[in-house]
């Protein structure tokens, strides 16, 4: 039982580190390039901005959920 818990915690920590690296890359690359475009959209095309905002947040959530699930499967698979 204790071994299982230790393995789960270790897998989670490894996942967190890999995830943090991916997210930092995401901040600097994607958001940097999207920032200006979204700002212009918000200023001049509000309805397009509103639709894009929803698509972006849902799309990102689906991708992030898949990434974290995949990482967890991958790391757990290797530690077991």
């Amino acid at each position, binding site marked *: 039982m204790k071994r299982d818990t230790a393995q789960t915690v270790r897998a989670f920590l490894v996942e*967190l580190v890999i*995830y943090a690296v991916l*997210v930092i890359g*995401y*901040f600097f690359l994607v*958001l940097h390039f*999207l*920032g*200006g475009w*979204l*700002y212009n959209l*918000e200023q001049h095309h*509000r*309805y397009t*901005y*509103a*639709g*894009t*905002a*929803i698509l*972006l*947040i*849902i799309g*990102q*959530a*689906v991708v*992030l*959920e898949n*990434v*974290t*699930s995949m990482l967890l499967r991958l790391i757990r698979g290797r530690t077991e």
Partner: protein
Amino acid sequence: MFFPISHSHISPLYLAIIGFLIGILGGFFGVGGSFIAGPALRAMGVDWNFAVGTDLAHIVGKSVVAAKRHRALGNVDLKLGLLMAVGTIGGAECGAQLIQILKRTGNVNFVVSIVSIAVYVSISSFMIWESRKTLRNQTGKKRTSGNKSDESAFKHVTRRIQRLRLAPMVHLPVSGVRISLWIIIIVSFIGGLFSGFLGGGAGYIRMPSMVYVLGIPTHLAVGTDLFEIIISASYGTFTHAVKGNVDILIALVMNTGAAIGAQIGAISTQYFAGPKIRLAFVPLPLIGAAIVIYTMVTGHKL
């Protein structure tokens, strides 16, 4: 990091950590977490209108992650979620109109504050009473259904509500409930009304209502509430974005933390029985009440 849409400088790490904390709460309790996100954004100097709109956008992302995880665990009743979304959107519009009427009479802050304190404290008091009574009853009985067992001391009232034959009746096979469509619409309408009136997703009202009024098992109520929040918060995000109240870049950064937190929260529900989840839920509305009282006493909006 500079966010040009809301003209604010905020550390992305701060946003990710706030998102992570709200993600855990959302995944575990099925709430939006606006009572934390709003003040957290305000503390960084984000204007109130942007805090409200951006929080809604972040709620959409976090709820997608948590609802997806809950769906994998079998905790989402899609049919119920879709039916409730209709009532919630209608209720949210009426709540927003009510705010406009109060604005015209000049009593908006006082009335909203008093109503919210009364609602928050009532929900917490009722849930303390019910969950403690249920847990006490359970200790005397042999448990047969493991961690997901879901008894309620309020079940006799719930059964009476379910027996009301107001056509059309709706069968919800996933939740194991047959109930009048009108009761579902009324419950979701009231949730939406409070959402429009008090702000946020109003999960603190909808989740308990689903358990006590509709008779939905707690785990399913949490998952279904999250699914329903995706629809109603998307609608709210769209209307706020059109009015220029959403900084989607902030929401996207917050959501990176929430993606992990929401999964932890959702998975954690597997290890707790329904009454224990409901008992742990009690402090959330009280935190909301404390924030409102602080605002009333000091005059500073958190």
